[in-house]
């Protein structure tokens, strides 16, 4: 259990979370190495199928990170993303997967520290939840 190394996929909007990861980098803010970024042009691009597939492939946790509410580069993409995340959480619940394994975060492109904090927080949470029931299927 203790040496469980979860695999976490973060779908990150290019305009905020991806930029924040860069800021974290240039400030050398250290964070948990379990997170892998997938860049998308806007959190609004995310769709339920992609998220579900990601779990199916074996991800222990997934989160979507978009701009602060009201700050979306494409006006409202992050609001849509949140709706979809909520929707998929419900499905996960129905499938017997802890909906906590999926999350939506908002942050700005300058918040390098916040990016790291999210990565740590979420990794911690997934570590507590243990490997995904779909892992190694």
């Amino acid at each position, binding site marked *: 259990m203790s040496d469980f190394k979860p695999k976490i996929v973060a779908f990150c909007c290019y305009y905020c979370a991806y930029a924040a990861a860069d800021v974290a980098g240039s400030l050398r803010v250290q964070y948990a190495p379990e997170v892998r970024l997938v860049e998308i042009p806007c959190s609004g691009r995310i769709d339920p199928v992609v998220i579900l597939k990601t779990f199916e492939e074996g991800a222990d946790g997934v989160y979507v990170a978009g701009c602060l509410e009201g700050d979306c580069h494409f006006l409202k993409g992050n609001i849509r*993303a949140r709706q979809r995340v909520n929707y998929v959480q419900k499905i996960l619940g129905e499938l017997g997967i802890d909906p906590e394994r999926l999350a939506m975060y908002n942050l*700005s492109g300058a918040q390098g520290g916040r990016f790291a904090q999210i990565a740590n927080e979420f990794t911690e949470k997934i570590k507590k939840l243990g490997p995904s029931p779909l892992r190694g299927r």
Partner: protein
Amino acid sequence: MVVGGGIAGMQAASDLAESGFFVYLITSDDSLGGRMARLDKTFPTNECSMCLLGPRMTGSLNESNINLLTRAKLTQLEGEAGNFTAVVERQPRYVDEARCTGCGLCADTCPIEVKDEFNGELSKRKAVYKQFPQAVPNKYAIDIENCIRCMKCTRVCSAGAIDHQQQSEILNINIGAVILAPGFESFNAQQLGEYGLGYYSNVVSNIQFERMLSSTGPTGGHIYRPSDGAVPKQVAFIQCVGSRDCRKGYGNEYCSAVCCMASVKEAIIIKEHKPETEIVIFYLDMRAFGKNFDRYVNRAVGQGIKLQRSLISSVKEDPITGNLSLSYCDKGQVLTEEFDMVVLGAGVQPPKSAGELAKAAGIELNQFGFAKTSYSNPVETTRAGVFAAGGFIGPRDIPETVVSGSAAAAAAAELLSAARGVSSREIKYPEEKILSSEQARVGVFVCCCGSNIAGVVDVSEVVKYASGLPGVAGAWKFTYSCSQESLQKLKEIIHEFHLNRIVVAACSIRTHLPLFRNALREAGLNQYYLEMANIRDQCSWVHRDYPEEATAKAKDLVAMAVGKVRHHRPLYLKPVQVVQKALVVGGGIAGITAALSLAEQDYQVYLIERQESLGGMLNQLYLPQDGIKPRELIEKKIHAVKSHPNIRVYKNAELINVSGRIGDFQSKIKVEKTTIELKHGVVVIAAGCREGNIKEYMYGEDKRVITRLEMEEFLSSGNNSLVKTVVFIQCAGSRQEGREYCSRTCCGQTVRQALALKELNEDVNIYVLYRDMRTYGFMESEYRRAREKGVIFVNYQPDSPPDLQGGYNGINIKVKDPSSRSNLELTADLVVLASPAVPAEGLDKLAGLLKIPVNEDGFLVETHAKLAPLDVPTPGVFICGSAHSPQNINEVIAQAKGAAARAAGVLSKSHLLAGGPVAKVNQEKCAACVTCVRLCPYGVPYIGSKNVAEISPVQCQGCGTCAGACPNKAITLEHYRSEQLIEKVRAMFNMEVARSE
């Protein structure tokens, strides 16, 4: 040439580059960004300033028609408009920009620490440094004054970028026009010792406070008291520090126009962090005159931020606790309150270098030291061919700065229209190989970034691992992938190994994607056959203590990139033809100015006006502004329009239908009884505003109560022998429920009207009953002049407005005067109401035709309140003038010119490139459910003639919202297709399985 790398300079440069000019962008700083880079968020939307700025800065750097020179100054300008020779002096940076990778090793080893000016001296930086983490170009620089030449940096820099011997360079550059945009700087509040900045630790200036709020600032975005690191519980803001002060040496006479809103913003941000914080803003007039500003202030008040009308005499520090006490006067009582922290709302002033720059460029400055520009062309300086933009013209916020940047670009383009495209760089690429049928042969290039990556990640192992991945034809290791040398090598390898997909595992796509895409094009590959894996910023830099995990992660990231790139498709940007003509709707000053600018830039313009004559509201304004009479101005312009061969005017005309898309619109126009069809590439909406109705203050009941427009008429008759007492009532019909905004133009107009009355007859008694005198910027001097002439200004509260009673001798007015704690009873011969400016009749309908949203107040909504104030979500449509929000004439003119520049960006091209990573509808799958039509933030999808959704690749912005939402999965977002994303994720798990086997 554009001088100044702030937002004004970047806007001007990119507008010019966009419309076919080659631009030298020179800035004295190490990085682009200017003041905006120092801000945390921006009012009134509270958006992150850096998020807005970042893409702008990289955009300017990567634009092939912009040549950026940092640490550079204009020292001489010879020749004349159209043909100048600019002498530019480049100060050495001591770091070779071409070699530096921005790794920061030099700064890590540098032993010298100095106060960081960028952070308001609240933190330290090294002698070799980068101004801020997101600096563009992402290169270090040496502050030679503090450098002790220990050469530690030289030793550690494996890129060999450090060069202490660098000399300054003098460049002679041949150019056609110059735009000066050196911005403004903050007033140094330390000059006012009574506030204790620099003496009391817990007093900070607003710009220092912005740095504290910023997550990349000295406190990482947390608000701590400098004295003891405690979280402040009571914070006071003091306004008008160094502004609105007529004394020499104590600041400036004008109003700095941004500090009121900046403080409200900073207060709101504190509340967001810590809602329990008690905040008081001590102010004199809350100058919330801009679009949506009053709402913003009301929101702040709603959150419990207290606005206290009273300026502060001095700040006192408790030497033990570090707390600060302020005394202020309220309702005849002097009260003292203690705060843990005080923020000074310091004003702005011309940059120190303004005088030098003006001399070099041969222009005059105004009495306050800003660029002297004309009211009728706010970006034109006193020298032909030299224009000004941004804060250098006078205090202004970001959107107005952006507008003036565009306007200056338009002015320069008018001058140089013959030279368009002559020196712009058109890069020729080899013919692309057609590879769609071929098997993927992926080449993986893993970067060491000196030791930035290699120091943590085992690069050789990653290379080995990568070469074993499915579809990979080979993997290579580069010390610095981005060096010219490596790029050359990359192209050779592509040819040698017949690679057709490329993965570069290095740093951020935000900075390096354009570079590598370009390399692919040069190698004859489609630029979309590239994927980058960020194993530096997202890996080696942030997992320094776990080299093994970092290596594993780097492998995964590479595998993921390979997984995705195998499914990349070539994307082609297809040229679509542009009808190089413009349609301008509205024949007021805005429409006319935009039309003239476009016509001067050699485009055909259709100008439609629904009334019988051109001119709009300006026909009703009489008093001169800054020496210019609106009626004369408009007559001159109307004449110019009529005689311009490129402009076709339709009067009594109305737009009834628009179809098509950017570059190719078709419009139907009803002119009297006939309908005309016009084809054009862009639309500029300049439908203006009008005077709104007033229900209050006996208007309509008593003839002696008139509106400010009627007052203009009255003054133009020049006959006021009978009036002895005139009372002006401000905000009549503005800033109240249902019209929760400021009409912006009235306070200034009232002051002008009062002065004009005094001019006619010195003995006339004038009272102005106001809520906040919003004579922002240089208008403050006129406000002062009116007081000097004896005009009495009485501050009334909205809950006890003036009470009017008609009488035989005049109108009797009762009003409370807080400054004397008495009730004034006035008898007026004339009452003038500051009537509201409301959107033009039918603006909502017009907006509907073009799919432009309108706000609660009925004005048009721009794409982005800060950085795209003249664009609307519908591509190819631009807005300007009072249809955007109430404005003064000079501001309208700037907007109109700016809109012309934006429009010219489209019209200058014979073809637009459409496509790339945009949404595409699979018509078979579409069920016409209109989900996409509803959700697209730009209103692009529509249900077409085949009863399925259609998305124009020219208009689509590529956000993918529709693709994510389409219930039938009929929409794909190219380059981010679901299968691509899924393959990307799968790659990381497949390999894990493989490894455990």
